[in-house]
């Protein structure tokens, strides 16, 4: 009897243990998720989702709610697929003071705004590695401008913008000695400085120009947001490593209980600059602009910046203590609340802009750091979100006073009320969310409806593809009280920040063709009558036209091994969606795609004699396979006469 009881209780205990074993994550959506993301064939998505590509240096354009990928726009990385960075016209886009840099790490997107609302003019993006900012046109979906940022050690807190796109900022993630000074690394505290560039945007054409740089204490500037509404005129930057460590930051930059959010009164800085109080410093940096009329990029090397040291102008900058290495530093739609996300903190402070103003007026300081006043924590604090989750990173907002914060460590999105600081809902993400995006989330007037999670870990969410897996985003419906998972969709590169904009703001102004009569490329052949081949020393210029379904000229002779042959190909089509491509055997660069009415140039250096075919790479028409030609290459020194033709002369 006793034995049996023992056995039974052992079995029961075992069953109990097994029953307590936690289950894997519940990953199934509920309700009518499928119908909410289904966009029928031929129908359009409601939003464009402009997604940073991270280490692919590009921008992905997706549709929301379907999650379908439309295009990958090359920005900081060469794209052999369409010749960006390979064609003679686009090569200058990637010039820097270091030379041609064909890759970068694109982290953040900022869509232009007017009065704090999306206006659908431009998208801006940062290059994190070799510090740069880029501007993409929403008419052509092309990178039109890239500006290098001098005195920066990594352009991470960028390109956040002011409410009327007056400025975008570029704050250095890593402090460095200014002006490329050669110093001992352990002289960090003495020699290393931070640098925040304010880039003025020309409202007529979007052209960017570094208006001034703020010289700031040497630590790490992570993320940023401009004030808006009541706080327009201010900028907020999260700072970590206020310990000023230069090695093993993992430990050494995590010692202080509080780091800072740096509040910058940029209107004041603007005044000082207008009064001529800025100091001109030498700095070498490249400014690359793509011209829509000549279809060519040009590089201008600049050699100075105007600098304001915030130590010397005490009413420009203030430090607000913020717990434990803050990452996100996000401003709510009204501009009154600033959310600090301490990566290692167990709560999230929300600061009040009006309290900050009072604290400054009443000098409620807790001493200073490197000459900059440190505001008393409680004096600027609206309140703390208690036990929100682990590892808060970023916060976006809806139009109803709610905030959505991503938590990397606890892998979830938490919805909370900005005023009451009460946690309202939480949903898991799969897995370890980084950035998140609510359509219009960073603007004064969020469009709401969805929140999209951009995850850092994908693991078992898709069919495995070896050790290197796809990256992943997840779409949640936020129209109700509870967030609802609707869709997983894979992304290219590693998405960091993204914005979504209503399709109606962009769709109708999307360019279809380049009018041939406006083509101002000096190498254009605006008709088959202008097609020709010219030799200048060892340079051979082929002025070629492409129209369905032939290239003119398509028979070329008189080229020698070692010549530099430039194929200037003009697409004579004036019809929507009829690009032509051009590729030639043995080219050491890439192909080019030429849009209707456009001229692009591929350089080719023949290294062997023979007859070499070239052809159109974009399946343009029923006779695309016929769209080809030959170029004859003679050995160096052989005097084959220069000849070119298409078709048999009658």
């Amino acid at each position, binding site marked *: 009897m006793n034995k049996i009881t023992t056995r039974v209780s052992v079995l029961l205990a075992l069953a109990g243990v097994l029953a307590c074993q936690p289950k894997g994550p519940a990953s199934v959506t509920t309700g009518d998720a499928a119908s909410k993301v289904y966009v029928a064939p031929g129908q359009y998505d409601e939003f464009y989702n402009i997604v940073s590509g991270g280490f692919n240096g590009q921008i992905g354009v997706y549709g929301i709610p379907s999650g379908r990928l439309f295009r990958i726009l090359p920005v900081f990385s060469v794209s052999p697929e369409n010749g960006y960075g390979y064609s003679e016209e686009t090569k200058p886009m990637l010039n820097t003071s270091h030379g041609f840099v064909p890759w970068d790490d694109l982290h953040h997107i900022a869509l232009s705004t007017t009065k704090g609302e999306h206006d659908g003019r431009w998208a801006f993006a940062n290059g994190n590695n070799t510090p740069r900012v880029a501007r993409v046109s929403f008419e052509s979906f092309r990178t039109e401008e890239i500006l290098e940022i001098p005195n920066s050690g990594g352009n991470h807190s960028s390109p956040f913008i002011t409410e009327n796109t007056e400025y975008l900022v570029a704050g250095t993630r890593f402090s460095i000695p200014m002006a490329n000074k050669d110093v001992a690394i352990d002289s960090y505290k003495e020699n290393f400085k931070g640098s925040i560039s304010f880039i003025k945007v020309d409202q007529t054409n979007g052209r960017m120009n570094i208006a001034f740089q703020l010289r700031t204490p040497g630590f790490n500037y992570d993320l940023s947001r401009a004030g808006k509404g009541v706080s327009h005129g201010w900028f907020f930057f999260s700072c970590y490593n206020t310990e000023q460590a230069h090695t093993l930051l993992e430990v050494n930059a995590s010692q202080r209980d509080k780091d800072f959010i740096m509040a910058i009164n940029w209107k004041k800085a603007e005044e000082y600059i207008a009064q001529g109080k800025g100091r001109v410093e030498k700095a070498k940096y490249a400014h690359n602009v793509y011209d829509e009329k000549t279809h060519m990029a040009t590089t201008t090397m600049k050699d100075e910046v105007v600098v304001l040291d915030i130590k010397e102008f005490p009413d420009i900058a203030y430090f607000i203590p913020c717990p434990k290495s803050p990452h996100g530093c996000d401003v709510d739609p009204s501009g009154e609340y600033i959310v600090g996300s301490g990566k290692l903190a167990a709560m999230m402070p929300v600061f009040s802009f009006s309290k900050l103003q009072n604290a400054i007026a009443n000098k409620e300081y807790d001493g200073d750091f490197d000459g900059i006043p440190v505001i008393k924590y409680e004096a600027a604090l609206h309140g703390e979100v208690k036990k929100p989750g682990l590892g808060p990173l970023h916060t976006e907002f809806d139009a109803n006073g709610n905030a959505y914060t991503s938590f990397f460590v606890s892998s979830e999105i938490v919805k909370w009320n900005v005023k009451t600081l009460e946690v309202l809902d939480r949903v898991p993400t799969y897995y370890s969310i980084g950035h998140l995006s609510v359509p219009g989330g960073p603007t004064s007037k969020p469009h709401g409806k969805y929140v999209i999670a951009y995850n850092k870990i994908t693991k078992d969410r898709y069919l495995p593809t070896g050790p290197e897996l796809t990256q992943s985003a997840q779409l949640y419906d936020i129209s109700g009280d509870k967030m609802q998972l609707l869709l997983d969709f894979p992304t290219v590169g590693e998405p960091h920040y993204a914005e979504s904009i209503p399709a109606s703001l962009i769709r109708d102004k999307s360019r279809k063709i380049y009018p041939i009569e406006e083509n101002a490329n000096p190498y254009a052949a605006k008709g088959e009558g202008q097609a020709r081949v010219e030799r200048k020393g060892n340079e051979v210029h082929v002025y070629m036209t492409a*129209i*369905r*379904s032939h290239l003119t000229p398509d028979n070329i002779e008189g080229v020698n091994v070692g010549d530099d042959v430039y194929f200037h190909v003009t697409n004579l*089509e*004036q*019809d929507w969606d009829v690009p032509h491509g051009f590729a030639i055997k043995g080219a050491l660069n890439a192909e080019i795609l030429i849009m209707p009415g456009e001229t692009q140039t591929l350089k080719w250096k023949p290294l062997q004699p023979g007859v070499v075919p070239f052809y159109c790479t974009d399946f343009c*028409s*029923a*006779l695309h396979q*016929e769209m080809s030609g030959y170029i004859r290459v003679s050995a160096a020194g052989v005097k084959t006469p220069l000849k070119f033709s298409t078709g048999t002369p009658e």
Partner: protein
Amino acid sequence: MKKLQGISRVFIVIAASLMILAFFVPLWRILMWAPQYPEGLEMKIWIDTLTGDVRTISALNHYIGMKHIEVEMFPEFLYMKYILMFIMAVGFIAAAIGRRWSVYFFAGLLVLAGIGALVDFYIWGYDYGHNLDPTAPIVIPGMSYQPPLIGTKILLNFTAFSGPDIGGWLFVASALLTFGVIFYEFYLQRKKV
């Protein structure tokens, strides 16, 4: 011959005046759809020019060896406006004369002009559709590509529609008004007999 009623003369003036608008609006339109052109291609014929996707249509037509369409190829664009001015002048003179025979003359002229325009259009269409380059990439024995005179026709992957545009309809309205006047005068005369 009998004099016209006052109201009839007014309507003849209106009928002639309507045609002034034909100088400022397209007379005829040709629409084309294909699987690759769900948005459609359009060509509009004006009194002195062609507009719309003429370049695109020409580019597509080269596959089957049709001629490139250029405004300069059509002498009609040089003299059509004078014909129209003449017709309008006849209308106004007919109203001024105010006799039945003058209206019959105007109506006859309108009918003749209409038939003439359609015949001319047919001849051009026939020429375009049949007079093909024998070295064209696509040659289908026995196939011709004459566009429809009026109505819809399927030509390979294209569905083509041809019909009056605003100017054409104005011309039709002028003719209807003129014949209305004739009918009205006829009806009145009978009642009096």
